């Protein structure tokens, strides 16, 4: 493939990725009362409505908090599982992989329902967030696992051995050698976990605590009865928010390591 052709190809894909989102963003500046396109005049009116809507603001805070917690738990458990899978699983490899993918293979609704029954049967109920966070962790775990294990395929075990020979214990080896070298996979997996948790609907819908709400549920409930561009404004803000998380992680953590 020639270089200009390649670049154009990539640009087209980026445009494709951006297209429906651009529509939403543009619609959010609609001065009119409807989610229509093209917008009837431009204004920030729906942003003002949104910022003054305590319900949405609270839902965003809840979602951010849950997504962060989910990302941390999933990130840790999933990375550990990936390490096992790549270096220790032996004959169990295929089994481990299918098991780790199970939460994705099983329909989210069914997982949600079975988990709902389970939390009630063990007396946890939905008065707290345990059930919902467990659900989020289950759903996001495969993403961390897959990304981390893919990036570990090119990790040279000799690096760990060298660190070990220099006196580094298990955790130090992981933190100082392996983690920096599989960073793209870990960060990718964690970003997926964060974003998916931020966006997951069915699990939250079924397992949310009584009286609380996450942003997708709030949006869903809102859109059942409201058709104003406020929803687009909310979405635009959530795009900006998560984009910021992505760009900051790239800038601060660096998503590429120079090995060669």
């Amino acid at each position: 493939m020639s270089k200009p052709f390649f670049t154009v190809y990539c640009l087209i894909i980026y445009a494709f990725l951006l297209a429906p989102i651009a529509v939403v963003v543009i619609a959010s500046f609609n001065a009119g009362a409807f989610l229509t396109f093209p917008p009837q005049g431009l204004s920030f009116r729906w942003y003002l409505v949104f910022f003054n809507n305590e319900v949405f603001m609270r839902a965003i805070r809840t979602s951010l908090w849950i997504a962060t917690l989910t990302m941390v738990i999933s990130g840790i458990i999933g990375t550990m599982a990936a390490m096992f899978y790549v270096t220790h699983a032996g004959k169990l490899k295929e089994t481990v992989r299918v098991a780790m993918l199970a939460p994705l293979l099983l329909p989210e609704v069914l997982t949600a329902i079975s988990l709902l029954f389970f939390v009630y049967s063990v007396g946890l109920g939905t008065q707290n967030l345990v059930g919902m966070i467990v659900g989020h962790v289950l759903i996001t775990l495969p993403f961390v696992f897959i990304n981390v294990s893919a990036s570990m395929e090119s990790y040279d075990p000799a690096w760990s051995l060298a660190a070990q020979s220099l006196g580094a214990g298990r955790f130090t080896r992981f933190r100082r050698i392996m983690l920096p070298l599989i960073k793209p996979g870990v960060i990718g997996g964690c970003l997926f976990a964060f974003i998916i948790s931020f966006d997951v609907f069915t699990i939250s819908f079924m397992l949310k605590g009584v009286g609380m709400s996450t942003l997708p549920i709030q949006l869903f409930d809102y859109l059942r009865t409201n058709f104003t561009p406020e929803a687009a404004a909310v979405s635009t803000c959530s795009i900006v928010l998560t984009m910021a998380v992505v760009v900051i992680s790239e800038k601060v953590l660096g998503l590429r390591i120079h090995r060669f």
Partner: protein
Amino acid sequence: QQKTLVVPTLGGVWEQYWRSTVGPAFTKQTGAAVTLDVGNGRVWGANLRAAGAAKPPYSMVMTNEVFASGLRKEGFFEKLDLTKLSNYNDLYPLAKKTDGWGAIGAVSPIGIGYRTDLVKTKPKSWKDLWNNPEFKGKIGLYNFANSAGKMELLLFSKIFGKDQYDVDAGFAALQKLGSVIQVDFNMSTGLASGEIVVAPFDFGEIARLRRQGLPVDCVIPEEGMFMFDQTINILANAPEKELAYQYANFLLSPEVQGMMMKEFFISPTNSKVVVPADLKVDVPVSGADMDKILTWDWNFVNEKQGELAERWAKTIK
């Protein structure tokens, strides 16, 4: 110590209104705090079933009769203690059809909504969906999962067959309708974008779209209307049964019914509420017209739910 009632409610504008107005008014009247639990019949039903009838997380639910009737059959609810519901007697007969087990707290009649700018011949009858070529490919229908979808089937069965139970006729009609746009919820965005030009619509929704400037209108079809209902039920083992009754009575009161009418353009179920002239356009159904709203045998639907859903899926294109 202040008591707290968990109040299940719909989201969006409903939640906003409950938060800003209904909840505080109830608190003012009774001194009890209110926790809103936003959701819908599906999730409340799932939660109740998971928790079991003995330890429900709610004291009352207000939801579509189609969900309520199932839960009722499974023993979650109790027969209403009418002595605690002073407003029950003032309800239209339509709202009292459950033999004292529930009381309809809100009615949104459903007729035919359409785009006045995109449709030349305005619809008059449900049959126009089949007969008006302008509609072809631009008809919206609720899917079977939605209670409105089930009612579409029963209605068409009734129109094209012997009665609501003649679902063969209903499915045959749906088959003939050709390609339609099915939605699970939110018919409005399709109508606003023009993808849909005609569809079953509740009048309150049309009223709000029209007030927001969309060229839409809605007709009461010759064959009659159906409705989104919201039946109030009290849990047999309610943690706060007293409060639940107080809240139910509060919702059925003329004041609250009137407030909901002004806010959501529902048709009040308390016969003491009079629709003012300036609201007649947005709330076209009230008084004697309430009896023109068709009602359905939900037991029939619930028992045959699986089979009907499957036939629906196989039929609709």
